[in-house]
């Protein structure tokens, strides 16, 4: 990893026509690009390795490496590796690599209301897709999913009764509209 820059790293990245909040956001994005470029580089290397492990000789073709199933993943993997390296270099040059201050910033993000709500929304969709659907009745699964989501994320001026009513009506409308009228298969 490139060496850390000190506390002056923010000033080097700030563009004069941006507010400090916008500048900080840009810095954070550049630092996130360092991480994402590494992940993408690893994926591209795995794709290249995967491609090389696929058979080169297929029925009817002798040693024609360019027709092998692995040639395209290798081709794309190489391009992705180059692009991710360019992104890494550009991001590190722009705003340096991760430092201790970034770790504490990440910790702060994890405790925000936004992040909590995000985890809940992902969790509910996960339970709906992986646990409810295919095992329980679609109508029941969807009604529960809608009700729980609306209850957790609702504004206080909406009562539980209104939420329950809305989730039942919407589920009934979706099931009748798509399943019965349009004859679309429902999970």
């Amino acid at each position, binding site marked *: 990893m490139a060496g850390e820059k000190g506390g002056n790293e923010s000033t080097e990245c700030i563009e004069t026509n941006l507010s400090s909040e916008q500048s900080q956001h840009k810095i954070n994005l550049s630092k996130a690009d360092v991480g*994402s470029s590494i992940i993408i580089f690893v994926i591209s290397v795995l794709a290249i390795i995967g491609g090389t492990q696929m058979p080169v000789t297929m029925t009817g073709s002798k040693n024609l490496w360019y027709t092998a199933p692995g040639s*395209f*993943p290798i081709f794309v993997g190489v391009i992705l590796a180059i692009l991710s390296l360019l*992104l890494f270099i550009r991001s590190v040059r722009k705003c340096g690599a991760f430092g201790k201050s970034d770790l504490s910033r990440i910790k702060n993000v994890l405790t925000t209301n936004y*992040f909590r*709500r995000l985890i809940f929304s*992902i969790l509910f969709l996960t339970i709906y897709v992986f646990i409810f659907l295919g095992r329980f009745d679609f109508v029941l699964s969807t009604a529960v999913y809608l009700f729980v989501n*609306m209850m957790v994320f609702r504004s206080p001026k909406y009562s539980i009764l209104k939420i329950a009513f809305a989730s039942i009506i919407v589920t009934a409308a979706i099931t009748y509209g798509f399943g019965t009228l349009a004859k679309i298969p429902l999970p």
Partner: protein
Amino acid sequence: MEVLHLDQLFLLFSEVFQLLTFQNIILFTLCSAVGILIGALPGLTATMGIALLTGLTYGINLETAIIMLLSVYVGAVSGGSISAILIGIPGTGSAAATVLDGNPLAKKGFARVALSLAMISSTIGTIVGIVFLAIFTPLLQNVALNFTSAEFTLLAIFGITICGSLTSAGEPIKGWIGGFIGMLITSIGFDGIYSFPRFTFGIVGLLGGIALVPAMIGLFGVPNLFHQLAIGEDNVTVEKLGKDHGIRIFPIIKKNISLIIRSGLIGSFIGAIPGVGEDVAAWLAYDIGKKTSKTPEEFGKGSYEGVIAAETGNNACIGGAIIPLLSLAVPGSAPAAVLLGALTLHGIRPGPMLPIQFPNFIIEVSAVLIVATVFMRIVGYFICQGAPHILKLPSFILMPVVGALSVIGSYALYANLFDLYVMFFIGLLGYAFDRLKFPAAPIVLGMILGPLADNSLRRTLMASQGSLAPFYTRPITIILLIMIVFSMVTQFPFYRRLMSKIFCKLKRAKSVS
């Protein structure tokens, strides 16, 4: 292949009248309304709407499916202006430029005027795009008949590079990475030549590859769902419609006819570039409208020209985006990409062979677009009256419904639970990319162009026995190579510095002479 002839014009009008059956009128009305509402509600996008609808139209006949999808497309692109004007938040990305002048107009009490201008500009813009579509698609199909595997390989790569360059707001590397990630995703499953299973890891569900429609719903619907629920309570101010203040719309339109034509041409041209889409079309039309205006200082403060330019540009892009879709099977925008998936599902294979297999398809699509545009205008007028109430619908009610619809849309195609898992995981990936500012359009384009690039590249090398000569010895391949290099090089700072040095020197030389 000829450009639109008189007999084809007659056929076009005949198709338009044939479409006006009672059932179709109901369909156009309903689907235009759905499209406008999808466009008007922030958090829902035209791409998502079409992606959800695609799976639902699977068992329906082709004509009905085309009517539904194109009505929603046209409605959604124009519907974005409603929330842009009334709450200052674009309902779709294509209406972002409309906010700049539409919302200030609404704040001054001219919301009704702004909405009327937006709707009429959208109508005219779509018509300009349709004219482009009808004229240029046959021409491009004629050119595409000369394409071999080498040309298709380079076309696929060009699609990624130009889309990545134009959609990633100053970070073209991210656009290109997204495009090639999309291509890598399509490597999963049986390969197109030997049917060898690639990257399946023993999972049976992956043998068929990643299904396009669930992936698109995951990429465009799920990240929005997560984000809108996470940001929480909607604290938006919805402006009142107000009165029309005695302002007549048609004189304004007449006064700005050159602006409308210019914005329409810009939108259509941008639409024809692979994967770029309505957002860029709107911004470019707005930007050029401002630069050529006699009152550029009014832009951003409630200029009629600003609303007209943005809305004409983004709607003209619809017809433009369908040009490469039908002629080359390369979509010109993200909604067009989903449309490609829908057409393939219904047995239509866009490309140079389309006029042979379906001789009047371009005329039929043009006719549907014309009727959809008219209905968008009529239905849009009524929806605008109720818009302030519709826009008050909170996201905590709307977004879970989007989740349920995403599930139905992903499952409807093949009744396969595995597609739901694809939708979910691609949705997580899409959310991460969205937060990291990797644009989604190149990823989608990569997924569509991946099989084309894969099979074409290997077929070219098979035919040339490993030689790369076909990629640089044929006239069209040379042009495509130049376009690929140009689309990448122009994004780098050294090129911009070089160009500004050259322009400065030229300016100095001109002032001296």
